């Protein structure tokens, strides 16, 4: 835990860290915010889309749970954040349940009880995976990026890559995390891995983006390996399949539409 004096000292060091990084890399590196946006564009299709999400949970190396979801995502206005509607498919007990994320708004709908319940970001619906792990997020909209240099890092396939290291600081209230460290491939701007930090600076999780495949017009990561920051023995694989562009009405992302939702 950082006390006040440590915090103040750290703030004093911060400009030095940043200016050192900036002087070494200013000429060689593009605008960090543009890099972040380019990396986002690889993770997320620009058009409204549907994708199947399979969550595979491991504890101490053993597979302990699997669930399947269908995700519908689109931006609500030009340059805006994604809104995501997730329908539970498996296990059967959860089939048909919905989770809606639109800005800070997070709703859970159960077709059995016919109730739409507002939930807090801390209410996880999918085992160890956080709700944020299965929704589509544009980092560039909610975070301010700073370039922290180039370095070699290991990717999700355990190969060494040369990467831009970006430090993302939450810039809007919609940002889920206080800060993110993101490594972006210098060759093709693909996201390689990210470390997500809490307000306290504690590591919440590490994510590796891997299994790049051609989907909806670009090479995109189709698997994210998420390692819990507190207990690295808890690992979730988030697999994406069946990408398809869809004409998704904006009305789908309203709480009042949830009882009518059928998907496709």
């Amino acid at each position, binding site marked *: 835990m*950082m006390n006040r004096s440590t*915090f103040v000292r750290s703030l004093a060091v911060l400009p030095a860290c940043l200016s050192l990084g900036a002087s070494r890399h200013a000429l060689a590196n593009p605008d960090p915010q543009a890099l972040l946006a380019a990396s986002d564009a690889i993770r997320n299709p620009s058009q409204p889309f549907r994708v199947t999400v399979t969550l595979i949970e491991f504890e101490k190396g053993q597979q302990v749970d699997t669930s399947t979801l*269908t995700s519908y995502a689109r931006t609500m206005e030009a340059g805006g954040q994604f809104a995501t509607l997730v329908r539970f498919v498996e296990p059967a007990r959860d089939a*048909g349940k919905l989770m809606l994320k639109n*800005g800070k708004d997070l709703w859970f709908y159960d077709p059995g009880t016919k109730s739409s319940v507002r939930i807090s970001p801390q209410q996880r619906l999918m085992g160890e995976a956080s709700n944020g792990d299965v929704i589509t997020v544009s980092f560039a909209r909610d975070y301010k990026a700073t370039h922290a240099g180039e370095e070699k890092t*290991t990717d999700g396939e355990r190969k060494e890559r040369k990467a831009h290291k970006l*430090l993302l600081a939450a810039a809007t209230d919609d940002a889920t995390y*206080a800060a993110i460290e993101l490594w972006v491939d210098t060759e093709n701007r693909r996201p390689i891995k990210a470390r997500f930090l809490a307000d306290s600076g504690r590591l919440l999780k590490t994510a*590796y983006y891997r299994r790049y495949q051609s989907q909806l017009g670009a090479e995109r990561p189709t698997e994210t390996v998420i390692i819990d920051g507190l207990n690295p023995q808890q690992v979730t694989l988030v697999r994406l399949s069946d990408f398809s562009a869809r004409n998704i009405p904006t009305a789908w992302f*309203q709480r009042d539409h949830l009882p009518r939702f059928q998907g496709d």
Partner: protein
Amino acid sequence: MRKTRARAAAFVAAVLGAGHPGAMASDDAALSLVPQAADSSAGSGPRALRVFGELAVGRLGQRYGLPSEDSRRASLDLTWDARFAPQWRAVLSNRLDDIHPTGPGGRSTLNSVREAFVGWQSGDARQGVDLGRVNVRFGPAYGFNPTDYFREGSSRAVTTADPLALRENRLGTVMLRAQRLWDGGAVSVAVAPKLKDEPSRESFSLDLGATNHADRALVSVSLQPGGTVSAQAFAYHDRGTGWQLGANGTALWGDATVAFFEWSGGKDTELFSATFDASPKVSTRHRAAAGLTYTTPSRLSITGELQYNGFALDRQQWRQAVDQVGIEAMGAYLYEVQRRQDIASRKAVMVYASQKDAFVKNLDVTALVRYNTGDRSRFVWAEARYHFRKVDVALQWQANQGRASSEYGGLVDRSLVQVLAAFYF
């Protein structure tokens, strides 16, 4: 300001690379993990038919010198929701319960046709119309929903004390409903005609008298003034009793707390009069519920809810009523309250707690307490439920506690322990 400073600290930690040492070895192990199952993308489309069954056996403890009894229940639950044309859907939802022992005059076998309707919606999903028996439910509170105007008579078979699970059994109301959505809001109108005078206890009755016993109409307007606040307003009319107005709202507070409230005021039948008088007295009163749900990082959610019902008996009136008709006859009052999905006391408190993955993965522990602040009696319910892939196994315990002349202490049923298995197909 505090959040800004904390986030700045997190950013500093990121700059300085705090917490990074030692991470790589475990990352390497995580990246080597191979799932047992192949990708399950097949069959990921919407399922038109959802079916599950439940079997429960238990032991019921009773008061007034009555012996303990075995209890058992078998239930089959079916929902079919299919699109038969691009903008049209048909929904049929049915539940069959066989419950032992039964209450006085009750049937052991009860079939509930919960929903049977046809729906249409426009291509942009902004307009929709439904016709048939539709389950329309409003209200963010957990245990008492004053703005859930179609709740009366909707629970044909009471199979659980869990207020969230109980809603799965409720009957819809035959109505014509139209809805219009716009960015940030929606308006809906529902018109439900009177179809029968009285509820039916026949096993396979549609029980239209339970849900369509009067001409009723409801107009609701939903607004989303901000990303973290939502509100709904209602105008409800029952030809037999008159108008009620209502409102509810929710708000997100930080990352872990959701606040909610419901209020409804207007004309309705007084509950004691509805139970014992041939011509029930209609009054103008209020109902309200307000509460908070807080969730810890370890997935423990706790909800506290304050409840108020101006149509129910207060502490003094309860005592007078017990003196007047006797505690046993007050069972009829409590039955009427349950039928109306109301609360029996003027003021009550409910606490609901749920821990996901308690102690071991896939074990959920849930508990609730309903507390009558007037007579200090309480209802306590707890459940431990383990989720296998296609089967849930649960152990449930519940008890009615309090003085002999109190709401819960006067009930015949003292306690129930039961084991339940739910099968999902």
